[in-house]
């Protein structure tokens, strides 16, 4: 949130300089922002983001109501930096046998993804749940879905819109590893997070 404040006071030139720095992706994001202005869905997304901000003490009225150029660009910058850290974060989340609860070590990475998805309401993510080959296929299909849902729920709790998330399950049908022992199975019990 400090970032936002700083950027607001920073002025055009600096913003542009940064934007120029991250070439290709910027173009896409700008387009998305334009679309957001027209879409009612995106508007609600933006206001809920604003209310999150108000919780942490930043003045929300300026952000949500004034559609000033600098604010948009400010958000842009935040998005970029958040996106960068989201992309750097792990996209594979592993589980125990017949379990669908998140492991503690997944949370930091999921937080990074959540922050980015909150900042960029246009971003979409697909969560693919998987199981290892042990147990029966239809049951594992359900287990894979539960794992994907566990990740989805966590992201939603962190402020991501459910509409940004698509979940699906492949059960045991798409193993990462073909090893028929715990080394392979533990890699296959996973959720893959894929940006669309």
């Amino acid at each position, binding site marked *: 949130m400090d970032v936002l404040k700083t950027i607001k006071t920073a002025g055009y030139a600096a913003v542009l300089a940064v934007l120029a720095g991250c070439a290709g992706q910027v173009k896409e994001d700008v387009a998305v922002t334009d679309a957001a202005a027209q879409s009612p869905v995106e508007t609600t997304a933006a206001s809920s983001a604003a*209310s999150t901000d108000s*919780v942490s003490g930043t003045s929300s009225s300026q952000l949500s109501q004034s559609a000033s150029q600098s604010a948009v660009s400010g958000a842009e910058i935040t998005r970029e930096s958040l996106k960068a850290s989201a992309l750097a974060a792990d996209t594979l989340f592993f589980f125990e046998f017949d379990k669908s609860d998140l492991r503690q070590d997944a949370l930091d990475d999921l937080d990074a993804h959540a922050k980015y998805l909150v900042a960029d309401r246009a971003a979409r993510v697909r969560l693919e749940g998987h199981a290892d080959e042990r147990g029966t296929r239809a049951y594992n299909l359900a287990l894979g879905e539960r794992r994907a849902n566990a990740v989805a729920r966590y992201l939603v709790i*962190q402020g991501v819109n459910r509409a940004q998330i698509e979940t699906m399950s492949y059960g045991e049908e798409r193993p990462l590893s073909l090893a028929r022992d715990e080394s392979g199975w533990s890699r296959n019990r996973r959720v893959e997070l894929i940006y669309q």
Partner: protein
Amino acid sequence: MVAASVSLSATLVSANSLPITDDARGELLLQIEQLRQETQSLRGLMEELSNQLRTMQADEKSRYLDLDRRLGELIQIQRDALTTQSGNSANTVVTAPQAENASTATEPPQLSAQEAYNLAFQMIRERQFEASLEAMASFILQYPDSELIHDARFWRGQVYDVLADDTKAIQEYEGLLAIKPDYRRLSQVQIKLGKLYLKTGRVEEGRQLLNALISADPESVEAGLARRELEASR
């Protein structure tokens, strides 16, 4: 429930008046998950316990019926025994195996072997199994010359069998066979012993004993029982 927790989280997100941090929400989600798992495992436990209860009740019933049958046998055998005794010895007073036995037995001084035996036996009939074991044991010590000590050992074996103390039952029966290889209820003892061997995992001994019974007299009732036990052990 999922729907519930999702809508719960939605409420949390929009409730901007509540100072709930992301961490707090995450913590809440985690707790809901934990509660669910707890509920599930409790449910599983409850299902298993009620199943155990059901099977135990069924077992109980069949065990009671079995006990009832055995006691019926006991009474019958005792009557037979008394009839035989009365025919054999003239000076033994034959009393009906009823309450008088117990009342006369309350005066300890000098009981005849038969009286002492009857007293101990009465305890079995009244299902005072622990007491009957002691009574039979002291009978054996007090009247070592009585022929009835073999019967006493036999009944001790039976009582241990009823109490499901397999080891002790086996000891009694084995002891009896060692001392009195021509005991009149030999085949009954062999059946019981064979059954107990099978039950306690001494499968070879059990089979040998039962097979010996069968080949000794293939047409006998005991041979039939032995066959049934062998069949059931498979």
